[in-house]
């Protein structure tokens, strides 16, 4: 690990003032579940590390009538266990409760989950060619890609977006609160938060190098919502695909409206499955509609040499997430 200077500011303003206008030399540290591994593997080699753990303002959860605000430093374990969040946003809390294992959830944070680097094994091996590390080719396209993106059209880098909180937050219409230099605050729809990187100067999100996420705001609209992930192991594993859905109505024969179906681990960014949304919009959710939504969700998928199976898994995950959100029997739990 390269030596670095460690900072632990106590306010978000101080933290922002420590950042630079370019990526790489200064990195933000929250739970450390991502950055420390990147540093040990010399993928990240910052000269300065700014810890966010001393900023009390990032640790709060405020449940209001109109919306809920969650600080970026709130741990995944707190999100997963919060009674109000569990009641209002099961898409978020079930996803948080599924992440990694207890150790990861006790350290990992909301902000870290949104801003983490991708898990591509070529990106994380300094001896493998990788566009994101300045290489001239993507090793995954011709290489070992069973966990990579299946929506690959127009993407030179085929990472799978790793955040599983993103899907629920996008489906629920959440926004991210962002703080930049000179106390400049801005709000980004989570749907616009993510970026498909293609080179070493890109990140998997649209923040500027001198901005930080301070929290997210989720509107309270009484939406039915759920998340479902297909994972091979129950203990400490990444999802192979993950889906979150949210809609108004849609239970007891009532039509679903405002349908949002969001997919993760299938493309370089989380993606909103518009075709699937249309397949469900203004319809009562039945098994047949859920199946049709799953099929619509994978239209346009262009899997790689080894991950065609993920197309099928997206169909199933969409169907199951809709089934949960609609309150239908979980036929796969026996």
């Amino acid at each position, binding site marked *: 690990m390269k030596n670095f200077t460690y900072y632990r500011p106590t306010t978000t303003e101080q933290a922002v003032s420590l950042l630079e206008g370019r990526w790489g030399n200064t990195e933000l540290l929250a739970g450390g579940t991502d950055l420390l591994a990147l540093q040990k593997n010399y993928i990240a080699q910052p000269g300065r590390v700014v810890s966010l753990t001393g900023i009390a303002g990032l640790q709060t959860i405020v449940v209001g009538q109109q919306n809920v605000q969650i600080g970026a430093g709130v741990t995944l374990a707190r999100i997963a266990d919060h009674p109000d969040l569990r009641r209002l946003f099961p898409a978020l809390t079930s996803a948080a409760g599924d992440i990694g294992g207890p150790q990861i959830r006790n350290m990992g944070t909301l902000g870290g989950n949104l801003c983490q680097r991708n898990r591509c094994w070529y990106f994380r091996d300094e001896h493998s060619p990788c566009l994101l590390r300045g290489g001239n080719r993507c*090793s995954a396209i*011709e290489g070992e890609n*069973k966990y990579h993106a299946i929506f690959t059209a127009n993407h030179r880098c085929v990472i799978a977006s790793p955040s599983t909180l993103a899907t629920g937050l996008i489906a629920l219409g959440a926004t991210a609160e962002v703080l930049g230099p000179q106390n400049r605050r801005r709000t980004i729809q989570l749907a616009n938060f993510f970026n498909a990187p293609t080179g070493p100067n890109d990140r998997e999100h649209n923040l500027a190098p001198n901005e930080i996420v301070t929290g997210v705001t989720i509107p309270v609209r009484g939406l039915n919502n759920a998340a479902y992930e297909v994972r091979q*192991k*129950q203990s400490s594993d990444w999802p192979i695909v993950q889906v979150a859905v949210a809609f108004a109505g849609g239970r007891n024969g009532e039509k679903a409206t405002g349908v949002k179906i969001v997919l993760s681990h299938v493309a370089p960014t989380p993606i909103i499955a518009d075709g699937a949304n249309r397949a469900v919009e203004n319809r009562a959710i039945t098994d047949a509609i859920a199946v049709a939504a799953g099929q619509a969700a994978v239209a346009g998928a262009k899997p790689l040499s080894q991950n065609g*199976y993920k197309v099928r898994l997206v169909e*199933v995950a969409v169907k199951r997430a809709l089934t949960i959100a609609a309150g239908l029997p979980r036929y*796969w739990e*026996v």
Partner: protein
Amino acid sequence: MPWPVNRRLIGRSHRRLDGPDKATGRAKYAFDVKRPRMIFAKILRSPHAHATIRSIDTAAAEKMPGFRALHIIKKAGADVFFAGDEILAIAADTEEKLDDCLRAVRIEFTVLPHYVKESESLRSPTNTAGGAGATNIVGVGDLATDNFAEVAFNGAAATHQGDYGIAVISHQCLESHGLVAEWDDKLQNLTVWASTQAVPATAERLRVVFGLQPGRVRCITNYMGGGFGSKFGPDIQGETAAHLARTARMPVKLMLDRAEEVTVGGIRPSAYGNVYIGAAPSGQIKFYKVDCYGTGGTSRGQTVNFGLLPYVYGPGIPNIKRKHRVVRTNIQISRAMRAPGHPQNAILTELAIDDLAAKLDKNPMEMRLINLPPNDSADAAANPRTFPGMRATIYRREIEIIRRMCNWDQNWHRPGAGQGTIRTGLGMALHTWGGGGNGPNPTRVTINANGTVLAQSSSQDLGTAQRTVTAIIVAEILGLQPSEIMVDIGDSSFGPSTGSGGSTTCPGTSASTLKAAETARDAFLMALAGRLNTQPAMLSIEPGVIVNRANNNQRIPFRQACGMLGVPSVQGNADWPTVPDRAQNAALREEWQTRLTNLGVGGVQVAEVKVDTETGVVRCSRFWAVQDCGMIINKLACESQVAGGVIMGINYALYEECIYDRATGRQVNPDMEFYKLGGIQDMPNIYVHMMDMPERGVIGIGEPPTIGTAAAVGNAVFNALGVRVPYAPYTPERVLAALANRR
């Protein structure tokens, strides 16, 4: 019977004496050792899968802050044969400075062609893996039984031909390979704290490497954090640490990091084969033909156990034809891994039997009962306690037990007969192993005047049972409790011992422990008799007391008796009989090898799986294992050993696979993230039944309980789906592909 007939402790369940120490961290492993002035070392490895080293420039590294010593392993001009191959090592003051030093080394390579996929290496026109040979194919086995003829295939009521296989997996030891090396001031004595399953052998190898006098190297392994056949010596990393420690004149710690552990700590070879099998209408297998290959990386050894193919049932199958090729690849060498070749054999045999049974519409349990290897009558006549003479009897008994345990008759259904999205299936497999002990394993038991009892041997604690097993045996003989025995193991200064390989530790040490305890007891009673003015024959040991029949059955508490000895201590020493091939030792040898201990076990396992037919995710939901191990010393440890083997087998059935990138030849998952290992939530309830056959003596079971597990899981998946998933691990993509092929 040479073991006590009335056994107060042996054969019952005892908690591990060192469990609390291990759980709380009081137990110190090699990885935990911190010596005064200790520095750190790491090996610089080839990033390329095959290359020639053109030049090495360490000048900048040697000027880095914290640099202490350099050790060159391969010089310019040498070839490297896998990504991870060792080139040089550096020692530095801290681990951080060490990394900086290593990154300052400049090495130029000429990159050469490589193969990391065995199917491609099989077709390679050149040798990319080094050594002699025109291609990467190094071992060809081609054997058929006498009179084998294709005509054997005629007249079979059913035949089946199918592909089966299992991937290259990593040993993935939780405590990585390596050691801490420390020299004395005059560089004449070396002490190492090593993670090894062969304590004296590790010391001896280092002694030879450094040309030291006997007794000058001491290896200490008080606790051992995982070894499955890959830790039989210091290895390059251990020798390197000792070199660096000598150069730097400071203690050096060199333990592999996780990525190194996975990429160089040892692999288990793959095996892939096409099997053609046929049976008579009765279900009796008439022929078995296999054409298989596998890779052990750059190793030249077998990947299956060729002599034992087809597995278990071979002695009852009249026509056998087998072909096997060892295909080298540019990945690390294979290390013997927990029953080398046997799990591969089980995959290439047991799965084909279930496919054949399905063709015959036969229950696979009945199919196995029909095809059990017959008891070897000659063997049975020569010695009624050996396994070949009773194998059919043992398997039959085990199958009957497991049939009831898992309620097979109720729970088994025809392949694919279930309904719904989640399909349940049952599958079974048989296995066999040797597990006989041997010497030298000298053991010393000391009874001290202060009432303490100490048992010492250099043998290591590989299987987590060794300390407790030793204590149980000594306590049994001395009328004490296991917790009253101090056990010192894992130190080469206690003398020789055999490495813990082949399930030999318990049988190899328990006999000498018994004899040492008995000798110590006799010396104790002799000394005590002198003090009590009686004959030793008048004294006997009962739990906690010495009974003196010469004095009205006076009961003297053990501790008090120790205080009456009049000498500081009495000792008993014992070891395996030496010069075992001499005629006068034949009876003694027979006692040690077929009565005190023995060789050869069988076991039966049944897996229940639940397969999500939409996602292809397989979960092992329940598991049953019936295992024979001759005479049980610690029932709880045996059950635990079996459960551990099952857990390992489920892992390589469902999750484990080393994945290599074709272009770079590098392993993409040298970690615990994408090199998947099941956690507690992924493991089933495991129900273990131990057969206790004390008349056979002690037999090791380190290996057996993991052998058939993956095959049982594979057959359970087949039973659930009615379609064969050919290759383990049975991952979602493979399960979905198999289901799609059926549609």
